[in-house]
């Protein structure tokens, strides 16, 4: 396990990433692009339709930052970043494998976790997942030295793709490394669930107690479909 402090410079390649370990603290120099909901969707759609050449920017070796920033227009002199921290990455999971495979970003920077199924895609494409500290948007904005470009402005300020030049962009921690270790999986299995068991035991809570009447399953979920078909089979 890490905790080393390491600086990465874009374009980032596998050589720079192969020695990183979970929990190493990373600072990035170079170029990052903000990608949020609508741009993930647009990217996935263009790649699906084999229209890669219509993507107006090149993510190869660059940082992808899951972020919808607050930007302000400087009078006649372009844009400045006001506040820019990470957003919850788990909602981008469906789009990420295709983006990794076709666009080869250097690192993904976000918050929280990615679906465990993506770990193998990250390893296969030599990309790591870094977590930025949620809520530290003033800090990260102060490390963005230049706003280079804005793509797909029709998505609005928050969902457009912003190209930033960053210096000492961090702290970021390694959450999925190239060995396929995932701190999310590790923390849940080794710490959180055992702690939860212990707290339940101390409180005298029976294991697997089910006290809930409603909702039995969440409407609109896969479980709701399974529940319905199970009843049909019975």
């Amino acid at each position, binding site marked *: 396990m890490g*905790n080393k402090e390491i600086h990465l410079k874009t374009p980032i390649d596998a050589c720079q990433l192969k020695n990183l370990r979970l*929990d190493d*603290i990373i600072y990035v120099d170079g170029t990052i692009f903000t990608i949020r909901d*609508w741009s993930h969707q647009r990217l996935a759609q263009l790649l699906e339709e084999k229209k890669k050449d219509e993507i107006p920017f090149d993510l190869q070796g660059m940082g992808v930052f899951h*972020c*919808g*920033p*607050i930007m*302000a227009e400087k009078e006649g002199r372009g844009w400045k970043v*006001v*506040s*820019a*921290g990470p*957003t*919850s990455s*788990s909602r981008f999971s469906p789009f990420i494998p295709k983006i990794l495979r076709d666009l080869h970003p250097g690192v993904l920077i976000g*918050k*929280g*976790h990615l679906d465990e199924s993506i770990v193998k895609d990250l390893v296969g494409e030599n990309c790591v997942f870094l*977590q930025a*500290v*949620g*809520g*530290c*948007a*003033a*800090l990260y*904005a*102060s490390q963005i030295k230049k706003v280079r470009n804005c793509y797909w402005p029709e998505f*609005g*300020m*928050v969902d457009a793709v912003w190209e930033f030049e960053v210096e000492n962009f961090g*702290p970021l*921690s390694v959450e999925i490394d190239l060995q396929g270790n995932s*701190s*999310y999986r590790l*923390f*849940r299995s080794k*710490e*959180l*669930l055992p*702690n*939860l068991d*212990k*707290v*339940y035991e101390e*409180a*005298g*809570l*029976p294991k697997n*107690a089910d*006290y*809930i*009447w*409603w*909702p039995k399953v969440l409407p609109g979920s896969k479980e709701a479909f399974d529940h319905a078909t199970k009843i049909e089979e019975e």
Partner: protein
Amino acid sequence: MKVVQSDFLEKISYLMLCHASRVLPPAVEQAIRKAAREEPNPKGKAYFQAMVQNMEISRKRGVPLCQDTGVPMFYIDLPPGFFIEGDLRAALEEATRKATKDTPLRQQVTHPLTNVNSGDNVGWGVPPIFLDYNNRIDYLELLAVTRGGGAEIKGSAVVPIPGAPKENTIMKTVLDAVALAGGENCSPNIVGVAVGGFGVDFTENLARKSLYREPLNSRHENPQVAAMEEKLFQAINRLGIGPLGVGGKTTCLGLHMEIAGCHSAVFPIAVAFYCWSARYSRARIFQDGRVEFVTHPELNKEITHGK
């Protein structure tokens, strides 16, 4: 009788929204600083230190602490004998528009079906205004909140089987909700719990409003509720989730629980989270027109009295 002009509420809520997005209530800031000092896990400590640095930078630069400034929300508690004159909704909408432009807050409010963004955080029924008739106070209380989506969506509400053992059910529901969120609700959190009320929306609102209780982590006046609060607070902090789920001693900055009467067969439980960047601003307007900015006394430099 005390008449408060909606124009005046517009003026102070504008100041409060701008300020709430940049400076945390002192008790929240102190709790984060304490957590940073006491954290033994090096990764957790690095995270807490980034939070402290973030608070300092946002104050110095006058920029929002977090890019997710949420859907602005207002709570007004009205005591007996106080009346609001004028168009309150229009006033709070105007305060939101101005604060969005001047702070700037993130342009957030979007049509739920077309994704069209109003550009000024006003539209389609928001900002929400929660009005309560409160006969236990003798001042009008205004709360302005800029609360991000990441903590909001990880809250939940359930209806247990009526015969289930109450304390166990509440405990399991709250701890499961905390463990499911696993820090992705930008922990350490203020956790709000509500039990009872009719309709889960009522319960959820009660849980959400309890997040802003002051003093932070103070106990309910009902001893049974207070005992549950303490038990839940201790239990959550033993989960070791720490900041953003990277592991650490501090997972919960405060736990507030509220109760309300309920249907005999329906006792909903709701859990609400506030991220560590618990941004809200509270003001009181007294009978003589005096204004007290409770969480941000520095605003008293700008306004002390009004009509």
